[in-house]
């Protein structure tokens, strides 16, 4: 199990026209992922999703809070021990093209990490080949058909499977999938989503799924928790289907409204609304709801006081929470 408590990350300010003061990219974020469980983080570009994922994978420092793995606070561990734990957290990024060296075959790309492990375990070459075939089969690829290929000879979906196979070589306990399907052709996305779900069940791997697309989050973890973040803060969270079917926060409702409606099969939810304004950059004021400038339901109080998370299992931070029907409704034949 991996747990994060009151995580905070402040980046120093930047200069230039879009420059801004120091920005709290992650602000008081707490969650935990049980073994084999899934947690999804959804929110639009710039809300801090990647930063959370990179912190979990040990690639980014944090300014406050704790990351706890198997009961051990990572910050308090000696460097070596921390590195060993962190290796079991594997990051899968958005762009499978960039993640793979174009000059190396799939076999080379996968045997590199396997050699390291073989050395540690005193395993031989046969073990490496066996494991190579195993991980490729796990991700749904025919080893004989792909090991001699270079990345450019594969489709986007196949490439992302290779990246996942490479992550699996080290027997990870946590996969952080950061927009892992957004660069893949839509027709191929579902297969990769199902694979992630499968890995949870078969190997008790925990998945942190980061996306701006609510629907894909549902495919990886409809049984897990969904966190909606806005400007570094959690604005709503709960069981995935609970958040999708009974959203309370206007921002969650905007994200759900943004899912395309399939004309001919569905009609838009009666309360669907899409804010045309993009969110401004920079740090929101401490004493206001960060979403207030874009919120169609904002009242004077929203500009004066920051709403805190309320509720029990399903929580939301809004002065005027209200369930609205924004999700598309299936047409009955």
């Amino acid at each position: 199990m991996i747990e994060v408590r009151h995580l905070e990350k402040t980046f120093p300010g930047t200069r230039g026209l879009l420059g801004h003061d120091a920005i709290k990219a992650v602000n008081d974020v707490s969650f935990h992922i049980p073994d084999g469980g899934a947690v999804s983080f959804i929110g639009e570009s710039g809300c801090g999703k990647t930063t959370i994922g990179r912190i979990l994978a040990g690639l980014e420092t944090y300014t406050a809070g704790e990351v706890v793995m198997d009961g051990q606070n990572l910050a308090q561990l000696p460097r070596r021990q921390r590195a060993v734990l962190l290796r079991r957290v594997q990051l899968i990024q958005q762009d499978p093209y960039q993640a793979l060296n174009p000059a190396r075959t799939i076999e080379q790309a996968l045997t590199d990490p396997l050699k390291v492990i073989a050395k540690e375990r005193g395993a031989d070459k046969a073990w490496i080949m066996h494991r190579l075939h195993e991980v490729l089969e796990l991700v749904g690829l025919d080893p004989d058909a792909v090991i001699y290929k270079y990345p450019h000879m594969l489709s986007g979906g196949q490439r992302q499977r290779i990246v996942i196979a490479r992550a699996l070589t080290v027997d990870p306990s946590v996969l952080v999938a950061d927009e892992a399907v957004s660069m893949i052709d839509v027709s191929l996305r579902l297969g990769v989503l199902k694979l992630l779900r499968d890995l949870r069940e078969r190997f008790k791997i925990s998945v942190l799924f980061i996306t701006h697309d609510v629907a894909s989050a549902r495919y990886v973890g409809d049984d897990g928790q969904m966190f909606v973040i806005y400007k570094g803060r959690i604005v709503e969270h709960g069981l995935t289907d609970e958040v999708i079917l009974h959203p309370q926060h206007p921002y969650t409702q905007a994200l759900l409204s943004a899912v395309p409606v399939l004309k001919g099969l569905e009609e838009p939810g009666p309360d669907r609304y899409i804010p045309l304004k993009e969110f401004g950059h920079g740090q929101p004021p401490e004493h206001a709801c960060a979403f207030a400038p874009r919120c169609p339901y904002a009242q004077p109080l929203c500009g004066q006081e920051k709403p805190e998370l309320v509720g029990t299992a399903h929580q939301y931070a809004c002065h005027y929470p209200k369930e609205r029907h924004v999700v598309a409704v299936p047409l009955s034949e």
Partner: protein
Amino acid sequence: MSANSLPTAPPAAGITIRGLEVVYTTGQGQIPAVNGINLDIVGGQITGIIGESGSGKSTLAMAMMNAVPHPGKIVKGSVIIDGVGNMMTLDKESQRRARGRHVGFVFQAAQNSLNPLTRIGHQVLDLGRSHNVKDLRALLRRAKELLERMGMDADRVLTSYQHELSGGMRQRVGIMFALVLDAQIVILDEPTTALDMLSQASVLEIVRSIQEERGLTIILITHDMGVVADLADRVIVMYGGELAEEGKTEDVLAHPQHPYTRGLIRAIPRISGNLDQAVALAGSPPDLQTFVQNACLFYDRCPERMAQCQNHRPPYEIAGPGRKVACFKVMAK
């Protein structure tokens, strides 16, 4: 007042495409990127062209403007734009004037095609000059109105360089350029691909409302069936450089006929309904080998193939009111 007594607006311009063939000559061979396409783009509507990566959507769009880049070549066919003429036989200067004035376009990856060194406002003036616009002030005013209409701070955008804008802002600026000369036909190639869900929804909302306001003819190209299903009046499905199916959006979504279209629709991750109903599309996209076979282009991946499909390409034929399909199985019914 009955519908017939309303004053009838002049019919919006459409496009008639006949026998269009575009080939790329590469080291590996000839790629028939657009292979004998016959298509009528109806005026005053949004036509969505959907297909997976490499299916020839962008090539078709560029061919409509007679602007296919090297090493591509239009080998055959005609593209007749109402009010302009045949783009294949018009003189170069008339073609140039048609692009921008009659047909506005935002080519794929428009982010990069905005000039990085010139402020957006100056680019508007340059565009006006190259089309001999007399009243440049009025042109700037129109640019401003369009930007504000799209929820942007127009003064700030006009004095910005492209790198100072977010992806969603750049797409809106692209749309402004496509509309500012009052084109009646607008081609948008993957206008939302790099955007997060919320930016995508707002860009689509903008396209929808401007289209309604002005009765434009819009061609929307995307690999995302959801985007087309939400926005388009008609859907055209491309596969391997040919047309697989077309029809009214509601009809195609509710009753897809081509096995490929059915696969695409089943593969869309949804936010409601049974998770197991979604099925990933099997197989991989057509390659050079596929093109030289006589078989139906979808043969290798088709769950419903018959003996006949292996030896002939199915013709693209009428399959109901406003519907066309290229599939032997459908025709046999």
